[in-house]
């Protein structure tokens, strides 16, 4: 793909990924075929800040984990009342990175 297209993608979507992954994503996108551009461009990523708000408000019901696609962990949190409240608090600090990891997985699936 052209570098200008890739840089546009990085500029608009950089906040959805971990900072140490951005350089890797850029290299990967540049080496990817141009035909994948439209599917890459239309990908919807989860906003880590939005998920953090959900986690603070409804984290002990596991809604944050359900939203990013961690259904198993979501059920676990829901049934144990947010892991007796402890897991819910830990997730306030973990959920943004978890969301970014999930976004990367989503991008990897399209690029694979």
């Amino acid at each position, binding site marked *: 793909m052209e570098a200008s297209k890739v840089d546009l993608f990085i500029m608009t979507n950089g906040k959805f990924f971990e900072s140490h992954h951005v350089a890797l994503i850029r290299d990967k996108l540049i080496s990817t075929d141009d035909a994948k551009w439209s599917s890459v461009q239309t990908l919807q990523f989860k906003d880590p800040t939005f998920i953090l708000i959900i986690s603070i408000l409804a984290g*002990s*019901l596991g809604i944050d984990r359900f939203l990013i696609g961690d*259904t*198993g*962990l979501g*059920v*676990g949190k*829901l*049934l*144990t*009342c*947010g*892991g*007796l*409240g*402890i897991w*819910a*608090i830990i997730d306030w600090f973990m959920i943004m990175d978890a969301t970014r990891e999930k976004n990367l997985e989503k991008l990897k699936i399209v690029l694979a």
Partner: protein
Amino acid sequence: MTRKDLFLYILLATGCTAGYIWLWVAGDDPNNESTVCLFKNVTSMPCPSCGSTRAVVALAEGDFMGAFQWNPIGFIIALVLVISPLWIASDLLARRRTLPGFIERAENWLQNPWVYAPAIILILANWLWTFSKGL
């Protein structure tokens, strides 16, 4: 073993240990009104799984009806508490990895709308019931 699989085993093992410790600490006294539930402490409303400790304790005493009255979610928790240590141990002893595959299949099954829609309705109905019980 991938990092994700290892994480799953560690998470389940710690979760179970914490669950048994919690039962041991909070379970002996059925009239213990104190709670660590974040949701209940903040909103003073019961969360969907409030009462499940008492349900698991009732189950351990063989009181199935009482457990259902406290919170039916207690049955699921008791099942997980009994099965997962055995499953982890058998996977460790036989050097297999059947648990992560099972959890992945269960997650995919749960992402089917015909499964999760009734599940959400059941959880909500159960939640409304916990309100009327005044847990």
